[in-house]
């Protein structure tokens, strides 16, 4: 019995040793395999003074709910079949002098396909078919350290993601709120930038001319911000901006584990506000809109602490026009009141989990000398939170954003899933959901929830 067991044990031991040996050999073989050279042809690139890149995008959007009768679309249905072409050319005349030209063309034939939903002429011409000149600038690096960049350009300052404290140079694409691709959020402004580094400080001065205003949806579109006023019967006129130039200055530096920037500027509000209401003897009273002139001073800073990135922004806007409440709206014949506002942003990002970035931002706007005619209260607090998760070596990216608007006006939720099929092809899914309370300026957009599928072909010449 004992012998048998022993024999059995010996056999077992031998088998174990053999197995171990085999496993070890297999492991070594596998290991050697992973050390062996991968047979691929690594493509080599040639440096050139010029390059052209671009992408063609095709998207299909479906409106999940029924917007009100104020808009062209009133059913839950397909609401976009947009094709777009973006091209960007870079080049240099010398090591010091370079240029960039880019543009994007949009075409959306949905108004032809959905003929039962009559789209306005403005929708067709301003939104569904449009060409945008994006970057169009020259930049020059002088030997004395001065740097110039002149032309249509984007200069994104500040750190906040949800409100604009010091980031005032460029206007926004608000055709479809919260649905834009990241690169389309800001629109370029005609500007001249001059930069100079003085020891540890970088000094940027910017002058813009005719920078325009935020691009908003035209009449009939489901994000038409003036739909209610049009419905009441007012004529809406946009006045010429009196002062077309704007000026900004920024001082920025890097500190140990953090960055600091101080910004000041005088500029036109990127939003339109009522300059006056003309009701004299006209069959159709008119609201005259303009961009209010305002000034700003502020600072933005960030610092890292382990897995945490903290950031904040603080600023004062002088002479901001404030929207009156519904009762007072038509009483302010000489235009909306102007107030000073203090804006505070506090944000944090955490990346302690692998491939996951979490962020939270709380924003506050305090209006000085508040009065009862204003629609918004003296203190408004909003927040935004976001997660960004990547996998499959960043082929897959999932981003979720929830932005709770101030004053219980509602919220915007956004979920995007992007898959990088190859260097040339990206596939995307987007959901944007809107909720808004009845007293909110966004109330008419509450039924604009949308899902979108997108395919993008990238190319480089």
């Amino acid at each position, binding site marked *: 019995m004992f012998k048998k067991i022993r024999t059995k044990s010996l056999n077992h031991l031998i088998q174990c040793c053999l197995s171990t040996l085999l496993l070890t050999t297999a492991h070594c073989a596998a290991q050697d395999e992973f050390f062996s050279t*991968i047979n691929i042809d690594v493509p080599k690139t040639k440096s050139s003074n010029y390059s052209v890149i671009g992408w063609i995008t095709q998207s299909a959007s479906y409106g999940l709910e029924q917007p009100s009768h104020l808009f062209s679309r009133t059913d839950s249905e397909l609401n976009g079949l947009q094709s777009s072409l973006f091209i960007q050319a870079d080049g240099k005349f010398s090591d010091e002098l370079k240029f960039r030209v880019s543009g994007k063309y949009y075409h959306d034939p949905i108004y032809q396909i959905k003929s039962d939903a009559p789209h306005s002429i403005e929708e067709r011409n301003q939104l569904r078919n449009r060409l945008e000149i994006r970057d169009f600038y020259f*930049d020059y690096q002088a030997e004395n350290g001065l740097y110039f960049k002149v032309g249509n350009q984007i200069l994104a300052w500040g750190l906040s993601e949800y409100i604009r404290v010091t980031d005032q140079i460029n206007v926004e694409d608000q055709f479809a709120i919260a649905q834009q691709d990241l690169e389309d959020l800001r629109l370029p402004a005609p500007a001249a930038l001059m930069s100079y580094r003085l020891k540890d400080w970088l000094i940027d001065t910017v002058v813009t001319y005719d920078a325009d205003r935020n691009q908003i949806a035209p009449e009939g579109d489901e994000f038409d911000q003036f739909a209610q006023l049009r419905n009441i019967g007012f004529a809406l006129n946009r006045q010429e901006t009196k002062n077309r130039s704007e000026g900004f200055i920024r001082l920025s530096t890097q500190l140990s584990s953090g960055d600091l920037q101080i910004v000041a500027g005088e500029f036109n509000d990127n939003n339109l506000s009522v300059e006056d209401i003309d009701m004299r003897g006209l069959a159709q009273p008119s609201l005259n809109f303009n961009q209010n002139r305002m000034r700003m001073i502020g600072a933005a800073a960030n610092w890292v602490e382990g*897995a945490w990135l903290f950031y904040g922004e603080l600023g004062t806007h002088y002479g901001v026009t404030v929207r009156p409440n519904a009762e007072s709206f038509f009483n302010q014949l000489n235009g909306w009141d102007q107030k000073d506002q203090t804006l505070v942003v506090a944000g944090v990002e955490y990346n302690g989990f692998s491939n996951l970035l979490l962020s939270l931002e709380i924003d506050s706007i305090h209006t000085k000398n508040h009065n009862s005619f204003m629609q918004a209260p003296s203190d408004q607090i909003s927040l935004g939170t976001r997660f960004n998760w990547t996998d499959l*070596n960043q082929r897959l990216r999932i981003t979720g954003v929830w932005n709770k608007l101030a004053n219980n006006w509602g919220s915007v939720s956004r979920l995007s899933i992007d898959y*990088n099929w190859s260097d040339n092809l990206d596939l995307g899914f987007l959901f944007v959901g809107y909720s808004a309370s009845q007293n909110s300026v966004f109330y008419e957009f509450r039924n604009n929830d949308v899902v979108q599928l997108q395919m993008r072909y990238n190319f480089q010449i």
Partner: protein
Amino acid sequence: MGFTVIFRCRPAIFFSLWVSLFGAVFATSINARELSAYDVMMKYDNRYNGDSSVGQYTMVLIDRRERQRVRNLRIYSKDFGEDNKALSLFETPADIRGTAYLNFDWENQNRDDDSWLYLPALQRVKRIASSDTADSFLGSDFTYADINGYELDWYNYSFVNESEFLDDFEVWVVEATPKAEFKDKAENATGYSKMRSWIRKDNFVQVRGQVWELKGNKIKYFNSTEIELIDDIWTTKRLQVITTRNGRQEHASVLQINSIDYNVEVDDSSFTTEYMQRGLD
């Protein structure tokens, strides 16, 4: 450790670990047999690899279906005393062209690296928290820690094999495990539980590496080929890494130097956040 270990060497990004001055190596190899595992890694770390460099690289990312994605990038690196600054600029593909990564690697061990990322779509330079370092560098099998390096003194070293031959070259095989007092810090920074390096005895160039990830039962295998003497500096022109999970290949990256110049004039202004935004020249 493996190939990813750059320790405090200046990060000529990825490749600082591959380079070594031949002359210095010749002197040290005489006493090679007397070196401890720590000495080997110290000498590996202390190799001279130029005061500055400008390199043109191609990185190929290969998934388990063998689909390839190709990134071309240019890397500038410069020593500032004992500190190092490095800037990586991506040239292709179109959707990430203009992406830039700037890193300041401080000699002071108590000071975390300063890092920034510029994404053209965001149009802003974004500071990166230091613990991002264990994450993938723009989709590759390299982590930011692989690029930036980590501290030599965080680890204990032992020989796995004091003499082994790879392609006719005698190598040491050294294993590094975090010291107890630095375990959390080392693991957070790298995402690795232990690292193994194959160091050539003739020139202290690392020819193989193996790292064990803390999560997912993953092991990465590094391999260098096309080792050449360029401007008197040993340079690995081709570096590959294969990530495996449970013994199966999951993903791979190949990094090829198309050209590199050492000790060239690189303006200090190249290592500023504003330069990241000004793009490719």
